[in-house]
């Protein structure tokens, strides 16, 4: 009764919603699903194709390995596995200067695809 009285006094406070038809509801659900699905697909595509985290991991591990090589004065060829990466150190002589070496440290994924590569001309005697 109180509600009825209130409705009579302030009819604008009470709204009525029209219900949707079944077709409307289905179309709406389809649109939402498609937009969500598309968005997730694009996101996942970008996420996997750029591989930023794997690249970052490779970059950090290669840098660490490089500094360890300098610290231990070890420039010999060496391979090791780190998580899903294969790290490979390779040294060659510099063509113009015999006391310099070209040091290359690569990080490949398990399929052999190169993720990151560091290339530096080192002067081994500097660390002796």
């Amino acid at each position, binding site marked *: 009764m109180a509600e009825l009285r209130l409705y009579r006094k302030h009819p604008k406070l009470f709204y009525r919603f029209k219900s949707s038809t079944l077709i*409307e*509801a289905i179309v*709406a*659900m389809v649109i*939402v699903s498609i937009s969500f699905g598309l968005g997730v697909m694009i996101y996942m595509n970008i996420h996997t194709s*750029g591989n930023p985290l794997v*690249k970052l991991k490779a*970059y950090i591990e290669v840098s660490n390995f490089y500094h360890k090589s300098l610290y231990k004065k070890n420039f010999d060829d060496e391979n090791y596995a780190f998580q899903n990466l294969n790290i490979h150190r390779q040294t060659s002589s510099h063509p113009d200067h015999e006391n310099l070496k070209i040091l290359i440290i690569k990080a490949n994924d398990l399929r052999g695809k190169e993720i990151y590569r560091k290339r530096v001309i080192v002067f081994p005697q500097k660390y002796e």
Partner: protein
Amino acid sequence: MLKAGALYYTVFISFIISLIIGSLLLYLYFHNQYINSEILHERLTNNIESGINISLAAPEDIPYRKKKIIDLYGDGESIIEIRKEQWGALDVVKVSSSLKKFTKTKIALQGEYIFNTENQALYLCDLKKYLSISGDTRIVGNCSLPKLGIKQVYIQEKGYTGEHLVYGNKSQSKSSLPEINQNLIAFNKVYFEPLEMTKDSIVNAGVVLSEDSIKQSFFDKTIVLYSDNPIDIDYQSITGNIIIVSNHSITVGKNLNSRNIVLYAPQIEVEAGFRGDLQMFAMEKITIGKNCKLNYPSFLGLFDKSSVGDKMIHISEGSNIAGGILFMGGNEKNNQLTLARNTNIYGQVFCNGNMELKGSIYGSLYCKKFVLKTKSTYYENHLMDATIDFTSLNENYTGFDLIEGTDEKRLIRWLN
């Protein structure tokens, strides 16, 4: 009344979803960008490090005052620019590398690696005289001595206290010192000739030296502060790419804060108690007051063979110098390099004249002749209570390219 309609809500929800997905994509994009730019910067750093290593291992390949472009691996992907300048008795090497829109530059102060070539505690010219030692004299390291050799003597009733005369290998020296690096002399002598005041980096010292602090980056042009009058520097901070030139004299007060600067004047005096690093070049006289501490890499150079006036470098009691001393003052009796008692030199000393050594040299000494003055007597080629010890020189010491023919550099410090 709000009209119902699921499509409106659908569009709204789709918009919200696309906003969320868009934000995630943007986040991914910037994250990727950040990682890529980090990797790019790392490549630039690698290129610069490679360039610095080339300049250390093969300094003769990098000409002075000329820009050299090097393709590091011959594939056009890693190109660097190197420029080498002299800075007093040291080298400043600037290496730049560019990739896409990024450019990175590093500037390094470099010196000579002396352990390859020298390993020499004492080189004393063969003037057909014995080297006579007494008291607590110690010579540790390889020595090149006159043919007559070394002997112990009594001076002022003090005999030699050591077990061996030389704690190291001995070889015979020649009648002259090894050839000095002419490039070093030629470069630094320029500042004793009239400077062209029209050059924009030469500034009247009187105008600038009233400032409390003067600082110049090595990325910018060298500031040459010039005056025809005596220059006094004290209670100031002068650091960086600055050269001070006086036609008369320079006096360095004990409260000067200096780093990397170079001084040129006929006469230079460093007042007692000074602490800092300085490279200084004079034509007549350098005096280091008592209890000074000239930090590494300091350098004292005196070069003038003319017979006009006395030439001298005097290091007073209790002073320590980490760096080098070059005395090219000639043989006349009053031309002399003096290291007073309780002075310590950590580095290299090259003296083509008379040397009075009462202190300690932890490093190497190339010397024409020793002199020793007592109250009553003037001795030649005598040492009393002096130390020359190469083995105590820190293995990380990087020296000055004083002698021709040495060709390996080491990094002293980054200048940026």
